[in-house]
């Protein structure tokens, strides 16, 4: 299994040796303590602070939102460090066109180079040193299960010998996915073409898969927004000088951004906006939805995009907001309508997406708002008489939210059919929920509901899902479920003329 995957990997021999605090540099892969364990981490940035050197680390198989600046104390220097390969354009040329293209693209900042796992396919030379992950996998196999997990603490462990690699927290189950990850991560790199993507983005879409685009160091450290302090997850192209600020202020209503507190005070004394600048198209006791045209409210929508970029990894701000509509969910109080989340939608999606970007603000996450956003997007699709699907790639949180929404709704419909002893086709399910048939299919498969049994395709609802469904039903008896009430939507699908299309919306 592992061997098969190994053959697919682009083997890049990397120099390994011990490092000193002085020699640690951008591109190194070192073992760094995180959540009580040492983990492989790539150093993406180095900075000097008063308390000493700090390293910006991206942890292997951790989402980038968990990237962080770590002090030297957390870097395990007793383990060997993998050094970034020096660029060898000649070798790269030999290995094929793609690699040449990659190296030709000038990433002026070293940060954009990702030695692992998003590395270039450079021709192997010698092959004496195996790939770090292959070696890692091998050691995993040779050593029985890691019982030393508890041994490790955050403090530097003097016991940590080179053999300490054995103590890596990843158990054998994960290991498979690790090797999978390498091949998976290598793939998009190979057939990725930046120009192609820019062209694709020009005509539609808002998500990028460009690694250089998304593998950036977070530039804003803290944002004061309304009643909350937000800690951004990802890079966002706010003015460059903001990167040096400890705190950035964003006006809760017009979303203007200020590094200077005095400016922000002045702005607040003048700003009269109290809700998103568009038409309210939905209202219930709990939330309101506003529809905002990217072309008419360019400043506001740009501000919203900048704000949401801090929490959406794959969102791209390469092109302007004109071809999008923004559906903004708010809660009301005596101060105004507060931004809870939003989704954007292409005015005319060639791929039939009904959502481009979708985000619940961090301060409102895990409260069920995401489900409302998703439901609203499907209600709009129902009004349009279309089947919709969110634009890919989804983020991890996005996938979970969508899975949850899909599962709950599918289970409900399936159980109803089961009670009435009716048959149900995938298309029927899709039409009921305004989901695309392929989304229905993938959900059924992911939840192990789609089976082939006794020469027939059947849908089986697993017991745990039935239990969950009944539990929810119980819960909603006492506390009514928050849903979008379709009758309260006052909305007609906006119509755009040919000239809109020609002249960039």
């Amino acid at each position, binding site marked *: 299994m592992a061997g098969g995957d190994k053959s697919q990997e682009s083997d890049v021999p990397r120099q390994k040796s011990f490092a000193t605090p002085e020699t640690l540099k951008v591109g190194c892969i070192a073992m760094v303590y995180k959540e009580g364990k040492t983990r492989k981490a790539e150093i993406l940035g180095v900075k000097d602070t008063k308390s000493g050197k700090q390293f910006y680390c991206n942890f292997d198989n*951790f989402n980038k939102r968990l990237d962080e600046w770590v002090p030297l104390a957390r870097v395990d220097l007793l383990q060997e460090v993998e050094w970034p390969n020096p660029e060898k354009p000649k070798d790269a040329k030999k290995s094929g066109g793609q690699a040449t293209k990659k190296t030709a693209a000038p990433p002026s900042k070293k940060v954009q180079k990702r030695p692992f796992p998003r590395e270039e396919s450079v021709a192997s030379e010698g092959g004496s040193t195996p790939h770090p992950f292959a070696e890692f996998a091998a050691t995993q196999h040779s050593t029985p299960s890691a019982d030393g997990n508890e041994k490790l603490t955050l403090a530097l462990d003097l016991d940590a010998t080179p053999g300490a690699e054995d103590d890596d927290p990843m158990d054998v189950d*994960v290991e498979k996915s*690790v090797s999978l*990850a390498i091949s998976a*991560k290598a793939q*998009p790199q190979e057939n990725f073409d930046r120009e192609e993507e*820019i062209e694709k983005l*020009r*005509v539609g879409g808002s998500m990028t898969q460009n690694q250089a685009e998304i593998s950036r160091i977070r530039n804003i450290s803290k944002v004061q927004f309304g*009643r*909350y*302090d*937000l*800690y951004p*997850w990802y890079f966002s192209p*706010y*003015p*460059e000088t903001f990167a040096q600020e400890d705190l950035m202020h964003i006006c809760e209503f017009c979303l*203007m951004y200020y590094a200077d507190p*005095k*400016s*922000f005070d*002045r*702005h607040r004394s*003048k700003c*009269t*906006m109290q*809700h998103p*600048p568009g038409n309210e198209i939905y209202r219930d006791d709990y939330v309101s939805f506003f529809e905002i045209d990217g072309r008419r409210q360019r*400043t506001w929508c740009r501000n919203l995009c900048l704000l949401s970029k801090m929490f959406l990894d*794959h969102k791209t701000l390469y092109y302007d907001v*004109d*071809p999008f509509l923004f559906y903004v969910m708010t809660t*009301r109080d005596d*101060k*105004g*309508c507060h931004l809870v989340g939003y989704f954007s939608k292409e005015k005319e999606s060639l791929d039939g997406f009904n959502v481009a970007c979708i985000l619940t603000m*961090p301060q409102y996450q895990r409260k069920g708002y995401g489900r409302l956003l998703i439901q609203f997007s499907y209600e709009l699709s129902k009004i349009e008489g279309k089947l919709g699907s969110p634009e*890919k790639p989804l*983020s991890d*949180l*996005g*996938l*979970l939210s969508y899975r949850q929404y899909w*599962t709950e709704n599918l289970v409900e419909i399936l159980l109803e059919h*089961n009670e009435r002893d009716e*048959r*149900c*086709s*995938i298309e029927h399910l*899709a039409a009921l929920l305004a989901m695309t*048939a392929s989304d229905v299919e*993938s959900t059924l498969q*992911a939840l*192990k509901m789609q*089976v082939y049994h006794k020469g027939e395709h*059947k849908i089986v609802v697993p*017991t745990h899902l039935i239990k969950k469904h009944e539990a929810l039903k119980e819960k909603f008896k006492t506390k009514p479920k928050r849903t979008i009430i379709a009758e309260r939507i*006052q909305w007609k699908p906006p119509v755009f003329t040919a000239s809109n299309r*020609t002249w960039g919306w």
Partner: protein
Amino acid sequence: MKRAQQPARVARVKKLSRSQGQQILREEEIDSREYEDLFQQQVNKITSGVEAAEETEIHLQAALAAATSGANEGEIPAPPADETPGNHYNILYQRSFDNPVSYIRFSNTVEDCTGCGYDMTSEDDVFLKEYNKKKSGGRYSEDFFEKIMAMFEETAKTHAPYASVDNTVVPFDTMKSVLVDRVRGEVGEFAKAFYDHWVIRQQLQPALKYETSKDNEDADPYVCFRRRDGRQTRKTRARDNASVDRLKKLRREMEDARGMVLATHQREIMKRDLLRTERMIFGQRAILKDTKVRLSIKSNDDDLINQKPQKRPRQSDVPARAPVVGRLPNGSIGPIAPELPQLSDIQTEKENALQRIIETKTQLHRKWNEDHIDLTREPLSPVEDRGPEPSFRPATAQYRYLTPPSSVNSEAFEQNALIQKEAEGTINRYSSPPVEIELQAQRAYRKRVGRLGRLWIDRRNMAPTPLNDNDVIMTDRWKYDQEDDDEQDVYPMDPYDITALRYRSTLPTRSERSAARPSPNDRLTAAALQPPAT
């Protein structure tokens, strides 16, 4: 063993159609062991929609596994948001909000809602406070300061739109002139101080990076919100022409507008000059009056008031031209400005011209036909020996007169008719030589050109060659030279033959074709039955 069976089982799986109705079971309705087995088959990977590189992240995998296995939902750790400590919020957000009863409709932009476009920074604050301290007199409020700064920014944007590229700094004089226009009244010395402060601060304003030129910024992560070029529309000649026309029209209209503006400008300048002159005259007169009083000059005060403009002598000219008017029908129309040409004049002129053309054409025709003798024996047209030249046969309507212009009155129409009559007398007529002159039995040929350029040669009075019965070809030549009107072929016809009737009955009748409309079918059939008259 199971493993050996698997491939066979997998191969047998029918393809699942999306429209196929599927049975829905609960998990307990199926044997649990069997259920477990069923998933051994599933090999195809599920597309999750998450980017492949991130699909393997530990936390996501854990959460997904939890969702499928029914364990407690795994959470993906994310940096949380904190509530800002202190009463900061209520100070900053003081306005209270009344939710309207109806759904909000709103189209103001951010710029509309934020008032002055400049928000002063801490540095500005320090500067202004110090400046105000230095100045004992006029204190400038923060609002005023911001207003001035916004004006600087705005002016800079219009005067040096590429400042971000070439670092142009708009000079103070330009700013000052704008300020003078905007701020009614005197521009205090604050302007210079503010301007100097602005120049220092200008470069420090944090701003988003927008695209500036094509090269070298694709990789810059800070450049955002690029313009999307419009989609290519299909290029056709018609579209090209249409846009060219539209452009031309637009240009014309713009030029018209420009002309109008210029003319208006000219007019206003003249008005101003006129006013100035009058004022000057008034002043001069006042001086003159004073002088007169002082020197006690007694004269009429004609030069102190404006004389009434003299009556224009032109008015007396009008009666002289009256006859022109008189020619108009009714004569009820009042005098017309003499320089205007009369309609009737133009009409007569036109008619004369027409007449001249007609005459020249007649002359021409006569010339062409001078030596023409028409020797045809019986010209197709009836001979009318009215014309002066009998050798011409009559031809009607050789010339078509121009239709009278639609706007002319009835009288003009009559005039036209008169001319026509007159012209009729001069019309050329052709006639063949008198019949008596014609030689009997003279051979004659006539060449005719028929439709589609077919050439015909008519012969007349050909002496029949001695008949040679054997010479079939020769006889055949003359076959049609004889006119045998009274000798027509008789086709034998059986009046009681029903073939025609039978044929007719097979045809769909009209009533069949349109049952609604009754038609005189019987009569038609009867007519068809009748034998042709012989």
